[in-house]
């Protein structure tokens, strides 16, 4: 692997950039692997990388039906934070956050992780109570998250309107300074390049059509559009299509897939210094390195695998954005797109073993998967390598839906009274 650096860039430039090698070879499937990952998104590629890097399993294939990083990895708004309420969540996302730090150096690929701070707006007494609860819990869990007054919030994000006459006036905000954004494509490409360098095969345009199980019920490999590939360890990290893949193994999952929209504005000079989220008004925004305002919209109400941007969701989202940031009303929407998010009943992921021996799953991240990318990859790798979950992902088992030990962050923030 040619090391990336200002020097190599300079050297190659003199040669007219003719001698850059492929960042990852376009591999063809071998008959068998020690481990197969289904889905070449950030999570799947990360898992392959950590399998090879930390657990010494290098005979690994990542199988992707399209092109790597083309799913939710390349379609999300790249918000990174870890200020979750429950211990299980805080530990999971903070594990990821720690890995984000220094990821560029580890992968020798600039993932452009920008600690811009993630600010969540409180608009009513209930929000305040809920955020204070988060802040107290985060502090005792060693996760940074601080309370800002409306004025401090305005200072931190000048475009913010804190007018008391607003329909949803800003009463304050919770700020996680370590939170921020990263360049989504670079994350997928960085993991792909680093994994490939360690011997991982990245096989694109290869769709899984079946999961072969032996007489004992254990996994023997996967049927694909490019033939059968044998492996006793298969990890499924297929986001919106997880239900479809798991059904190939005869497993019904507590998942539903919904379209999630996002959009960007035309690029402008730096104007928006952080990430702002408002659950009450339903608006999420940051500004990319390129200058585009990156805006996350809501999910459509119905199950769908069509990645179509829905106008009504966009209308609602931009109304919300203009309500909180009235100076942007003349800004223009450049591009909208849709992803498919797989949502579990408690909106927390399922990461661990399945009832089928040798089959592992990483799914149900809903709208929050990107922030967990390095952590999910690492934990899926650990679980596949040891055939048992890491203490951090142990609570995220499938059985919790039977026993009732749900991890429901959204419910904890439930609005009523």
């Amino acid at each position: 692997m040619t090391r990336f650096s200002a020097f190599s860039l300079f050297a190659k430039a003199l040669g007219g950039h003719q001698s850059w090698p492929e960042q990852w070879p376009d591999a063809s499937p071998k008959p068998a692997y020690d481990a197969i990952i289904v889905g070449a998104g950030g999570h799947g590629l990360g898992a392959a990388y950590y399998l090879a890097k930390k657990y010494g399993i290098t005979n690994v294939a990542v199988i992707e039906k399209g092109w790597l990083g083309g799913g939710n990895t390349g379609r999300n708004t790249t918000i990174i934070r870890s200020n979750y309420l429950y211990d299980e969540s805080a530990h999971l996302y903070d594990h990821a956050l720690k890995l984000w730090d220094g990821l560029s150096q580890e992968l020798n690929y600039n993932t452009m992780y920008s600690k811009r701070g993630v600010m969540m707006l409180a608009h009513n007494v209930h929000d305040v109570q809920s955020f204070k609860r988060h802040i107290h819990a985060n502090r005792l869990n060693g996760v940074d998250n601080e309370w800002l007054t409306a004025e401090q919030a305005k200072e931190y994000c000048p475009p913010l309107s804190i007018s008391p006459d607003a329909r949803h006036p800003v009463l304050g905000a919770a700020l996680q300074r370590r939170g921020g954004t990263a360049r989504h494509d670079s994350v997928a490409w960085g993991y792909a390049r680093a994994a490939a360098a360690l011997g991982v095969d990245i096989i694109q345009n290869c769709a899984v059509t079946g999961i072969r199980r032996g007489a004992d019920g254990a996994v023997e490999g996967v049927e694909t559009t490019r033939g059968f590939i044998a492996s006793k360890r298969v990890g499924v990290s297929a986001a919106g299509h997880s239900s479809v893949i798991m059904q190939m193994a005869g497993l019904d999952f507590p998942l539903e897939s919904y379209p999630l929209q996002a959009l960007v504005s035309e690029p402008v000079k730096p104007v928006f210094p952080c990430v702002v989220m408002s659950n009450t008004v339903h608006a999420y925004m940051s500004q990319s390195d390129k200058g585009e305002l990156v805006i996350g919209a809501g999910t459509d109400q119905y199950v769908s695998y069509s990645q179509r941007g829905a106008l009504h969701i966009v209308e609602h989202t931009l109304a919300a954005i203009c309500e909180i940031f009235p100076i942007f009303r003349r800004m223009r929407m450049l591009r909208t797109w849709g992803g498919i998010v797989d949502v579990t009943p408690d909106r927390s992921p399922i990461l661990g073993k399945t009832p089928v021996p040798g089959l592992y799953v990483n799914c149900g991240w809903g709208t929050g998967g990107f922030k967990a990318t390095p952590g999910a990859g690492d934990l899926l790798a650990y679980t596949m390598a040891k055939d048992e979950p890491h203490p951090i992902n142990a609570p995220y088992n499938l059985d919790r839906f039977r026993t009732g030990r749900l991890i429901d962050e959204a419910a904890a923030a439930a609005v009523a009274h």
Partner: protein
Amino acid sequence: MRRPPPLWRTEMLLIHCPYCEEQRAEIEFAYAGEAHIARPPDPAALSDEDWTQYLFIRSNPRGRHHERWRHTHGCGRFFNAVRDTATDKFEVTYKAGELRR
């Protein structure tokens, strides 16, 4: 455990209400999850596994999906539909209680 619907919707899909016998705008309707999952007559008799199946397990297919909608801002009735989740096109809608299409 159904997702709360978005607060705010405008017209998108065109949906045929089997009660009003009219095509009406999606904004008048609320999605109500997978159809033909009847509540067990005697939940107490169910194993935890079976109860979980009823409560949480969904088919979530890519393709033909049986689902419920409610004409909330119309006649108010829940009804069933078959829709292709790959294209979002409705195949048919029919009244609650009618046999699975």
